[in-house]
């Protein structure tokens, strides 16, 4: 009886030893990797670089933790699975934030383009009415050349928007708006002086 009991204990013991190795969380690893890749596809590295770097660090750390667990005699992936799931969720957030940031930049650029168009209309109107006074025709010609440059720039911004180069489009639109505003201020001051006379 005793012999049977001891044999049973030995068998159960050995079974427990080998059953102690949990299954490698391949599904979760794949899901996390795919989620991070998806953030790259929406150019999160460009639009939310800090969040993207944090996500990458998180993935690298959790993958190392998974391998560490796998290197052990008795692997237990419970914590790592939780971390992988969290990383996948984090990737989703980063992707959403990148998309939102991109959309925000697009809208800002579109708004800037509208403002530029309004400013350009006003500028052209004022330029036509501007007196050929002390500043001279050369100055007005220079302003006309600047307006032409802004118009060319607006074309470039639209091309960049069309080719999804949103960040550069946004920066250029901002610079063009500043330039158009500068000219507008200059011309408005000139026109105000004229009215006073």
């Amino acid at each position: 009886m005793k012999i049977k009991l001891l044999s049973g204990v030995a068998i159960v013991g050995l079974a427990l030893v080998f059953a102690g190795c949990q299954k490698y969380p391949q599904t979760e690893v794949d899901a996390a990797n795919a989620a991070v890749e998806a953030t790259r596809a929406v150019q999160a590295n460009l639009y939310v670089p800090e969040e993207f770097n944090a996500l990458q660090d998180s993935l690298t750390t959790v993958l190392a933790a998974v391998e560490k667990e796998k290197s052990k005699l008795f692997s237990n992936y419970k914590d790592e699975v939780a971390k992988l799931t969290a990383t996948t969720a984090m990737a989703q957030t980063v992707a959403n934030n990148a998309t939102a940031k991109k959309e925000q930049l697009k809208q800002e650029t579109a708004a800037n383009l509208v403002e530029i168009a309004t400013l350009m209309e006003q500028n052209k109107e004022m330029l036509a009415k501007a007196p050929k006074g002390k500043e001279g025709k050369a100055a007005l010609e220079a302003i006309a050349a600047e307006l032409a440059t802004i118009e060319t720039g607006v074309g470039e911004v639209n091309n960049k928007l069309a080719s999804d180069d949103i960040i550069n489009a946004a920066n250029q639109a901002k610079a063009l708006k500043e330039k158009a505003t500068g000219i507008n201020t200059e011309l408005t001051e000139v026109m105000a002086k004229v009215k006073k006379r």
Partner: protein
Amino acid sequence: MARRLKRKYRIALISFVVLIPLTITGIFYWGTPEPPDQELEKANSAIAIARNTISPDFIPQALRDAAVLYDSAMVYWRTENEKFILKRNYSKIRTLAIRAEQLALASPKIANQNSVGFLAAIESDIEKAKKDTAQIEQLYSRLPLPTSINKKYSQGLLLLNEAIQNLEQKNYKVCRTKLESAKANLSDVARHTQNLLTDYFANLSMWKRWVDQTIKESSQNQSVAIVVDKFAGKCFLYKNGVLKTTYDVELGKNWIGEKKYSGDKATPEGKYKITKKKDGRQTKYSLALLLNYPNDEDKRRFQEGIRNKTIHRNAKIGSLIEIHGGGGKGVNWTDGCVALDNDQMAALYRLVSVGTTVTIVGSLQPLTEVIKRPKP
């Protein structure tokens, strides 16, 4: 006998049940290699710190290599983990991880060295571009520049502004690209204006000679003489060799350079005489002083231009160059004449007579002095 055998059997069984698992467990426990997690963790941490501290535009090769070594270490680790636990060997992974950590730790210093050089070059280029801009700006409003140059100048300014904005936003690569384009545009404009002025001021000694001669003649003949400095936009009235009055003048739209042919909107340079004083219905500018343009030198130059084919064979030399009223617009607007505002014209008109010398020169001062003058 049977009992002894039973006892032996029992001992053997106990040994099997207890010792074998213990031995196996011991073999696995002590035989399992230590995973390289600490080395990899250090490498990963060093890479993350380096990546977060270094601007993306200055990431050195060392950091890229570190990342590759880390990835390779992870691949090897996975491969080793696929093997039977007692056959695993993590030494290569450790070596790769340690090397990755070393490279990552060295990266910020390398990046700093690279960025210092890069930023110094960018700042120096921005300074150069600003200097070019200041130089152009100094002369820009005074010169009749072609539309293409005007356009290039405004493009250059816009690009320079964008480059500075990108520098502030630490978009160094974009800044570099914008700056290169800005520099190219502004350098072209600076070169164009510089060449235009250098060519123009090559005649300075001749102009000075004309003016000296005019003042001397005014002194010797006790007469009135007029000197027009085109670059300064001034007209000087001399009486008996002494400067009496200075007037502001406006010139032809393309005033810089010599007048070559009719319709070029350039104001001629040379020594002329007043041939007629016009008033009333004789002129549309209230008062006017007709000059003897073209003089012999103008005719000779025009013929030479036709021969050299620098002037079209159907072109005409032009005439009716006057000093007249209607000025005060603050812009060079005439077809080649010299315009004063009506009050000043009336004053000048009273002081001169037919035969009065009118010497028109490009400038009375050298270019180096002219560019020091405040912008009008």
